């Protein structure tokens, strides 16, 4: 069955969501993944937005986390304070999985979504943290969506917006952060995970049609490819869910 790379990425992410998870979502592909997960692996997962909407009934896909579509039939519509407290607080925070995106990521999963070049006089300015740094600081698990290009996987990010494993084992905790960090990086070529001991990124899966070597060519730093296996493509059922139930109007995919 045919599928697009964006569909593949979405399904790879959806499979990471466990039943009962509270899913911190942005918009776009990350939201589609969270919505899909509810039909696949995690019927009791709860989508929530940094703007304060919890468990919204997403009849239409919101284009922003402040879109009125996230307000419809939610369990509660609060504000930013309540939303982030839900993640900072260990009682609910420990149940949250985040989904983030970035312009750059290094081997420890540190993210840059602020600027390329000098912070004060950047070549390219991006939106900045928003809630990304908060999520990356607070929650025990998060996924990162990336485009696999050399400049996006640099040895050192130009600006460290959201903490991954910082400088390696123990450095999150030493800095004052909660335990946690990225659990998977999902790109248009494959999926990376982080070694439990070294906290360094390694290649876990490459998509059908690509190779570990091709993936390495698209990164500035080297990663271990010895554990890499081919990813399972989206099933017919998964694609059906994406295309018919989650994004029928192809707003995102």
């Amino acid at each position, binding site marked *: 069955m045919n599928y697009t790379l964006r569909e593949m990425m979405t399904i790879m992410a959806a499979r990471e969501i466990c039943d009962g998870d509270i899913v911190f979502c942005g918009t776009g592909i990350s939201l589609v993944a969270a919505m899909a997960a509810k039909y696949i692996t995690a019927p009791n997962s709860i989508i929530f937005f940094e703007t304060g909407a919890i468990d919204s009934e997403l009849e*239409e896909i919101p284009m922003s986390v*402040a879109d009125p579509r996230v307000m419809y039939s939610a369990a509660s519509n609060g504000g930013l304070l309540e939303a*982030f407290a839900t993640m900072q607080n260990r009682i609910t925070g420990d149940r949250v999985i985040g989904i983030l995106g970035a312009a750059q990521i290094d081997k420890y999963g540190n993210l840059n979504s602020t600027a390329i070049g000098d912070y004060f006089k950047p070549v390219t300015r991006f939106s900045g*943290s928003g809630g990304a740094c*908060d999520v990356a600081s607070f929650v025990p698990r998060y996924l990162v969506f990336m485009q696999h290009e050399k400049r996006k996987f640099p040895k050192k990010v130009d600006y460290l917006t959201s*903490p991954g494993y910082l400088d390696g084992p123990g450095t999150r905790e030493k800095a*004052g952060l909660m335990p946690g960090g990225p659990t998977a990086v999902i790109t248009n070529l494959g999926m990376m995970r982080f070694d439990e001991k070294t906290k360094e990124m390694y290649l876990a899966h490459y998509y059908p049609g690509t190779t570990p070597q091709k993936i390495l060519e698209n990164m500035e730093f080297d990663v271990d490819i010895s554990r890499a296996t081919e990813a399972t493509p989206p099933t017919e059922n998964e694609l059906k869910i994406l295309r018919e139930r989650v994004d029928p109007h192809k707003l995102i995919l």
Partner: protein
Amino acid sequence: MSADQGKVMALDEAIRTYVKDGCHISIGGFTVSRNPMAGVYEIIRQRIRDIHCYAHSNGTGVDELVGGGCISKLEIAYGGNAKQAPTCIRFKAAIQRGEIQFEDYTNYQMALRFHAGAMGVPFIATRSSFGTDIVNKWGFSKDVRKKDPKIPDNKLVVLDSPFGNWCNTSKVILVPAITPDVTIIHVQKADKFGTCRMMGLTYADVDQAKAARNVIVTCEELVESKELRAEPEYNQIPFIHVSAVVPVPFGAYPTACYRYYDYDPQYLNQHSVFAKNDKLYREYLDKFIFGVKDHQGLLELVGKVQLEKIKADPRTGYATGLDRK
């Protein structure tokens, strides 16, 4: 101000009275929702300059204020705006060209800073941003901060908790309070004294209002106090915090106002085309902002047909089935 009229004012008068060159402001809303756009456009129209603006993700409004040349200093968490502008376009240009000074925070930090301001304490603690450049890189130098009494001496401070490891937390980051000279918000309903009823998400509007010396409220509907007081628990801002009330139907346009109207994808798409080109953007300002007397004028340019399309469906609170490509 007479008791009959309460705090009701014309928008141009409210902006002229409270928003001055060089003042510190914040605006309500989030990306494409409930931005006080009528107020924003009036600030641009009055060519107010050198504003120090505090924003979390106040997308559309802040980007227009930057584009309109009103802002010289910006403390911000997120300069993005949905699909039409993943990075706000005039914001991006202004920073890349070095036209404004800026300092980055996280959304939670900005929300906490308003919360601290509303509470009347100098700071509040969080566990967000340890080890990041949010902590390490300051947009305003120590020197600038020392000299300007309206900017705190530190951007953020890492503190060892004096309660040992209470709550499994040995250190925290303290974020300094924000107390804007003026906050402008747009709400669904207000009475003439300024008591506000918001519907849907409130973002950080309540704390932004309570932290400010003066608050300008624009509202879709000016309603009788009696109506709001029938359910006081749903009025998020009591009148004691408010300086001016301005009824402005479609006052958040082109952003959304839950249960009243959706954001206008057509306007926002067109706007992002304009915004990417300096000349086009100047023409846009000339036509849509400077070329009209007030927000009503802008709405007339947009036209009734377009406004009808984004009218909220009473069931969902947004324009169900709206073409948003």
